[in-house]
């Protein structure tokens, strides 16, 4: 296929990602691990496919009645002694959190892994207010030390190898013996456990995300394997939950249906180690738990996705299966996507949240092989939604001419479904074969399409803060 590279930036980025031996080695762990484990655990539960339908239906039902379930949720949180704060924008969410932290005189804040926190750039805002945020999820802690953003929504440091982590720990943990042995991953884990244990005990405020909010009981739910988020919300005097509006589900039964597909899809576990349900602050008789409980509920463009084609995307439970199964993600890693949400889900969600002018090119990062949709636990039609963005992008004439010819090429196949299926299946076999023993893709055929025409934002060219500033200056919602 002829190469029409339209963006020197993309060429550099894709080239760099594909030639980056460390990255390619690390991405091999994704290809091998996640896919097999998910398949094995799904095969063990005969009802798995039907549970995916159930999860989809629960999410659809909730979205159709989102205003009412959010009202009910708020009532229950308040009745349990908690506080709900509503935030239209990232800025309002940051301010709500900063206000609470300042009021209680917080100096250190521990954090459970939260994509919403990444979305609103919370750590930078806390630092600017002289409050020290400490990420406690091991992967998130590592990338915080490196000043990076997550490259995966459930495995933030999946792009790194142990030797890189070792050198970061040596650089930052200068209070420890420089001669210590850190050659094994378990030694790295033990060191992080020790360092973070002190932080858990010292923190004034704990901030977590929420996998779910339960309307029936006013409960926030987090799912972890490490126990870090659970300690984050149990130890400090104040617990703040930051969650987006679509996280609400009606009942304890509904959340149980969805939990049955979440861990299985995400890590291939039957159930994650810790699923923690928090309702309000500690009770008068309790001997532990936070004295204050706050929930900051963020919209940030989501309410406008309701009632549109992109409403389906609001079902997403952030399991990561779509990226685990994506040949494009495997090839270039998460940072190439240029914002906090990588992979197929990011390609669909990011344009909705930060604007099609900023992220409208992401939906092109697809071979349209359909593997993402085939594993999505809530059956989001990701390829269809990516196509919708491409069409909008086309209508808006935001793409350079060479892209339009690329789309023309794709449209030729799209109008001929059999030919398209054939082309993609051949391409998939080709990709699998290419990646098989080399462990990486030197080129991306099929949608050679993809490498040829697409424009990616610089992954490492700008810090998250810089990107954030320019995004806001650009008037994105």
């Amino acid at each position, binding site marked *: 296929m002829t190469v029409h590279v339209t963006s020197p930036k993309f060429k550099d980025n894709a080239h760099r990602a594909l030639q980056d031996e460390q990255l390619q080695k690390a991405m091999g762990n994704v290809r091998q691990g*996640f896919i097999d484990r998910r398949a094995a655990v799904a095969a063990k*539960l*005969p*009802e798995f496919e039907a*549970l995916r339908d*159930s999860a989809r239906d629960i999410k659809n039902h909730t979205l159709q*009645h*989102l*205003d*009412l*379930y*959010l009202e*009910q949720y708020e009532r229950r949180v308040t009745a*349990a002694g908690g506080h709900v704060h509503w935030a*239209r924008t990232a800025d*309002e969410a940051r301010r709500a959190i900063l206000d609470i932290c300042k009021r209680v005189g917080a100096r250190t804040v521990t954090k459970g892994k939260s994509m919403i926190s990444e979305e609103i750039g919370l750590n930078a805002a806390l630092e600017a207010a002289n409050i020290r945020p400490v990420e406690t999820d*091991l*992967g998130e802690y*590592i990338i915080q030390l490196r000043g990076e953003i997550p490259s995966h929504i459930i495995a*933030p440091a999946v792009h790194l190898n142990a030797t890189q*982590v070792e050198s970061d720990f040596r650089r930052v943990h200068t209070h420890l013996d420089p001669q210590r042995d850190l050659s094994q*991953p*378990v030694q790295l*884990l033990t060191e992080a*456990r020790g360092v973070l*244990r002190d932080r*858990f*005990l010292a923190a004034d405020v704990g901030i977590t995300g929420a996998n779910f909010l339960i*309307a*029936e*009981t006013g409960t926030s739910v987090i799912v972890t*394997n490490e*126990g870090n988020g*659970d*300690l984050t919300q*149990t130890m400090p005097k104040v617990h703040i939950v930051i969650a987006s*509006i679509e996280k609400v589900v*009606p*009942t*304890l*039964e509904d959340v*149980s249906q969805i939990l049955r597909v979440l861990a299985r899809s995400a890590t291939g*576990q*039957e*159930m994650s*180690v*810790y*699923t*923690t*349900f*928090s*309702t*309000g602050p500690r*009770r008068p008789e*309790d*001997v532990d*738990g936070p004295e204050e409980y706050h929930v900051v509920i963020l919209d940030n463009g989501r*309410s*406008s996705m*309701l009632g549109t084609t992109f409403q389906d995307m609001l079902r997403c439970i952030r399991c990561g299966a779509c990226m685990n199964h994506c040949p494009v993600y495997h090839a270039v890693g998460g940072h190439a996507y240029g914002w906090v949400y990588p992979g197929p889900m990011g390609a669909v969600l990011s344009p909705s949240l930060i604007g099609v002018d900023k992220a409208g090119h992401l939906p092109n990062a697809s071979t349209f092989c359909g593997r993402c949709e085939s594993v999505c636990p809530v059956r989001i039609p990701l390829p269809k939604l990516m196509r919708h963005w491409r069409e909008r992008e086309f209508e808006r004439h935001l793409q350079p001419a060479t892209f339009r010819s690329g789309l023309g090429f794709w449209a030729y196949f799209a109008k001929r479904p059999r030919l398209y299926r054939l082309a993609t299946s051949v391409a998939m076999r080709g990709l699998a074969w290419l990646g098989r023993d080399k462990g990486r893709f030197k080129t991306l055929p099929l949608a050679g399409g993809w490498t040829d025409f697409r424009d990616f934002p610089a992954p490492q060219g700008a810090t998250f803060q810089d990107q954030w500033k320019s995004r806001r200056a650009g008037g994105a919602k």
Partner: protein
Amino acid sequence: MSARDEIFANLRRSLGVKGSEAPRRHVVQERLESAPKGLVPQRGQLIGEGLIELFKTQAEAAMASVVEVDGPMAVPEAVAEYLRASNLPARIKMGDDLRLAAMPWGETALEISKGRSDGQDLVAVNHAFAGVAETGTLTMTSGPENPSTLNLLPDYAIVVLSAKDVVGDYETMWARLRDEYGKGQMPRTVNWITGPSRSADIEQTLLLGAHGPRSLHIVLVNG
């Protein structure tokens, strides 16, 4: 317009509703009240021995260890024995759970302190609210009886679980919780725990004992 009002106005505009429509409100009320179960996997639909066996198998698959004892009176010795076998000091922390308090701890050499954990405790003993067989999951409820910190901070977590509290599925467990706490009410914290703490964040290598306990030992009490 406040942030809250604008978000709700936006939601309703997008959904094409006013929010006051009686049929919609009825549907939501009905769902919250009836809490339909959805699809409950066959796997947990067992009784008696089969149910207990499934719980054990699943908990062990999640890398917990399980020991069965004949009755509550045998629990302290089983705990002491576990500590000896693991080369741990004979020291535990626990809360005010009445079921634990009724056990003959004095017959062992265990040194017992009470209350929440401050992060220095090596071993803690909590009593579970329930065990869910389908995934070998423990349900722990917060309170002075079984402080949540005891589930999370010690290196070795020991959980006492009555065989009669083992249920097949999450839905049955929630039904029991509602019976105890009331519809719509929850303890401050409910922890579902399936095996010991772990992380695969470094090169996708599975390692136990990330921030929570490195080991989870379940004492399953028959009779």
